[in-house]
């Protein structure tokens, strides 16, 4: 696109002095001015810390000994030797994978509800938004009580319905398997609304014609859903999955509040483990080394999802 054209006011004022291109008109200059602040900010506060993190990971910096000495790949070796690291890595994948699937499935159902027409829609939308708009620390603390080994209202309900005997409790946060389930549940509960909102966008974008054509063609609800609607919103579903994956993958708050990674690191994930080692343990270098594994994995996942989007091109 050429930008070397004089402003139209030229022709209207032949008697004005030679027209000098003002900055406000030069697209090239404007583009730079518009982008520079954000780029500088991001470079300063993301790129630099990122590089710093790599540097830390290759150093021996601790809270007690802030001097910076190069130790090469020792930290990485230590990290890879640590069984808790492998546990955390595995957990991160399991949590993210399972959460993602559930978030997408439930999110799709939720999205359908959000676009449907019925009375009381506003209230339902409000309720659906609550899990996501609440600060994660606060909602996690609520779940702490809801999953408590003595006082859990969920257990109370189960007892009231007869699924649990009197005085019987589930150790939601105490048993490794149940603890993992609980963490996944809280993630799904928190992020499904966001996924639903994103998918709403996709649903709303389907031309009304096509949905009506399917109705006239004789397709019932489920056929329309799976043969027309879902294929057409695939790209949006992928975006929702991506957001769900990012928020689950990088989360440390839910784990930290609910289980602190326990019992016995059964629910430890990379982010919480990095926080534990880096801040609580004071071993900055170690923490950085652990955390660095997050980025390439997330990058790979994002690329995979986005490529899938491009392949399912719908026009």
């Amino acid at each position: 696109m050429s930008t070397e054209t004089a402003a139209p006011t030229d022709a209207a004022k032949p008697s004005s002095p030679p027209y000098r291109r003002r900055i406000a008109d030069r697209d090239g200059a404007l583009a730079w001015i518009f982008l520079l602040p954000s780029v500088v900010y991001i470079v300063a506060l993301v790129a630099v810390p990122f590089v710093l993190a790599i540097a830390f990971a290759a150093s021996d910096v601790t809270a007690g000994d802030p001097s910076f000495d190069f130790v090469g790949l020792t930290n990485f070796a230590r990290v890879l030797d640590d069984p808790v690291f492998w546990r955390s890595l595995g957990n991160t994948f399991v949590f993210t994978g399972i959460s993602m699937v559930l978030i997408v499935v439930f999110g799709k159902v939720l999205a359908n509800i959000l676009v449907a027409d019925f009375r009381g829609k506003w209230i339902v939308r409000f309720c659906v938004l609550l899990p996501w708009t609440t600060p994660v620390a606060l909602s996690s603390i609520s779940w702490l009580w809801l999953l408590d080994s003595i006082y859990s209202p969920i257990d109370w309900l189960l007892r009231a319905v007869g699924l649990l005997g009197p005085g019987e409790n589930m150790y939601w946060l105490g048993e490794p398997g149940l603890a993992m389930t609980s963490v996944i549940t809280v993630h799904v509960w928190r992020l499904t609304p966001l996924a639903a909102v994103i998918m709403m966008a996709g649903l709303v974008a389907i031309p009304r014609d096509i949905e009506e054509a399917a109705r006239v063609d004789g397709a019932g609800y489920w056929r329309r859903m799976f043969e027309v609607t879902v294929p057409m919103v695939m790209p949006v579903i992928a975006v929702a999955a991506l957001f769900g994956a990012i928020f689950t993958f990088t989360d440390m708050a839910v784990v930290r509040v609910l289980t602190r990674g326990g019992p016995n690191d059964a629910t430890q994930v990379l982010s919480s483990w990095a926080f534990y080692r880096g801040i609580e343990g004071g071993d900055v270098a170690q923490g950085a080394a652990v955390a660095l594994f997050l980025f390439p994995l997330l990058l790979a996942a994002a690329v995979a999802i986005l490529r899938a989007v491009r392949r399912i091109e719908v026009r």
Partner: protein
Amino acid sequence: MPGIIGDAPTDELRRTYARRHVAGRIGVYAVAILVALGCAGPFLWSAITAFKQNRDLYNPANNPFVYNRPPTPDHMTYLFTDTAFGTFAWNTLWVGVLVVLITLVLGLPAAYALARLDRPWSGPLGIAIFLVYLVPPSLLFLSLSRMVVGVGLQDSTWSLVLVYPTITIPVSIWLLMGFLKAIPRDIEEQAMVDGHSRFGAIVRAVLPLVFPGIVAVVVFAFTLTASEFIYALAFVAPTDSMTVSTGVPTQLVRGDVFFWQSLQAATVLVALPIAFVFNLFLDRFVSGFTAGAVKG
């Protein structure tokens, strides 16, 4: 599957279809109620618990969803008088507002440049910004806490104002790009033909049209900021400088003692307004995602 006219008496067909329709409506309502309960159930419980007496609460045999003893405002009062909840809320508010402002000032022009001013490097830069979003706080917080100390902002709420935009800007740029692409170029071009510079055209013609999108991004960014936990935990230690996200857990959880009722009160007080406002702008927010997603 019920058939078409001619297969059966029309009256019968009508009844069958009507029945299915009703079943469908019931299904929708049933799922809607289930969904609402599932999502808001915990908050319902929180709201009730906030006013429960200790003896009512700490009794596993009691129904957690009703008042087995008369409700008490004590815990709510405690929240406001004995903790710095007011300060936390205020901190969250002004940090949120400032961060949103910074996000808009930096992000909106950037989004415009990427969406409209076709520079050869627009594509790669857009992808780069998206990639930034993938660098998680759980990785950066270590180096950032060092940097924050270096700048002298440790333990100050201002450190959050400085750092939070790293979370909000990339996603806001992406969303705003979507909103901007939905506006036809004609509008700006008309303004420029009418005698405005490109900049003038943006301010006069584009800005008013993208305003609803801006509002949606504002709400989204504020939600992200209010919820943020790891940076707040890592950078700010003094209680009075904390935001709701870290302050409430810190003050209401002392060692092993949880002030449950006050905690629930705090949760409800913070959650409800944010959800309410978000609900108001939900439709706008949704429309920005479509445009952004289509771009890929």
